[in-house]
């Protein structure tokens, strides 16, 4: 199963874990599986339309990817929050 590496500020919603293995063959499916396993994460990474939040990025391989990017079972998907704010 793909590994998901979570940014520190949302680890509180997955019991403090930094790395979680969940199923899914696209980045979006992985995020959905993550929400299913950890319901407190619902609404934090994607909004209720299923759109990635503006200041959240998914990284896989060499760069940022979209939710429909295919992910293999041995891949790592990084969920990263932008450093932004005032």
């Amino acid at each position, binding site marked *: 199963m793909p590994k998901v590496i979570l940014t520190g500020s949302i680890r509180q919603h997955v019991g403090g874990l930094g790395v979680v293995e969940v199923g899914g063959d696209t980045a979006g499916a992985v995020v959905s599986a993550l929400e299913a396993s950890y319901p407190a994460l619902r609404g*934090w990474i994607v*909004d*209720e*339309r299923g*759109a990635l939040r503006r200041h959240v990025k998914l990284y896989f391989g060499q760069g940022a990817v979209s939710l429909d990017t295919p992910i293999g079972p041995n891949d790592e998907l990084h969920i990263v929050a*932008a450093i932004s704010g005032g």
Partner: protein
Amino acid sequence: MTELLVGTKKGLVVLRGARGGPLEIAARAFPGEAVEFAMRDPRSGRYFASVTHGQFGPHLFYTDDPTGKWQQAEGPAFPPSANAAIERIWVIEPGVDDDVVWCGVAPAALFRSGDGGGGLCLHSICPWPGDPNRLAIGISSAGVWLSDDAGKSWRRSVGGLVPRYIPEEARKDTHAFCVHNMRRAPRQPTTLYMQFHGGVYRSDNAGETWIDIGTDRGLPSDFGFPLAIDPNDPDRAFVVPLAADMDRVTPEGRVRVYETLDRGKSWRALENGLPQSKAYLTVLRQAFCNDGASPLGLYFGATSGEVFGSADGGLTWSTVAAHLPPVASVRCA
């Protein structure tokens, strides 16, 4: 004992202390995150906070102890058919039925909870004491909406409101009625007060039509956001005027609350103890509240981090807290 819930740009601050005196910080929650609104439901004692995380969006939390751990509520969330996502949760309001809590959000929508806040959620929500079916809501740029069936159907009600910010020739066809704040007098539910975007109004018929109570009656400006009423006196209301829509600070460098005791026929300044020189403060929509006691306790906060309070209906004021992050909301627990 007074407990104030102060939502700020950088977290929730719980202030406690003797009524009328300086208040101490009893707790700080959601550090670094914008707390748009926080309140305590007097029926259940449960506390609610709307928190907008800069990266991870708006979420609603609840607790029975604001100095302890907060739980995340499910929702509010738009259904897929709406093709919309909540950007902010502006206000949380107890309903009339025991298990109902209302929540007003942006983009403008009203959410209802049926289980006391485990799952819920516009800026002004005015239930009708004793009648769960009758509601009035206020929406920025969209006016007043009334329902007689608990929100199943709505009708717009803007008769009497004058949108001066729209060119005169275009007013007839406009939908852009910018309500800034609206409150219902609980002991006389047909009476509502409104701070409009340029204009202060009262309705004597449950919001069906509106009467100008802001022009030439003693206010230094009829622009502003905060509005409070005396829950025990339907003739009494308070506003905190700002200079103008293009200059949203306290007029003339003086911080003044204005009170009417005669349903808006006249207004007088309440300024004793408030900064009266070189004080250009901004007081946001939800940052003004009362405690319902007699004499009435009044509290408001500014984006410059001060919270002011009065335990004698506004006759004298003191700074009850200072040096907080920009204050977005103030509610008595």
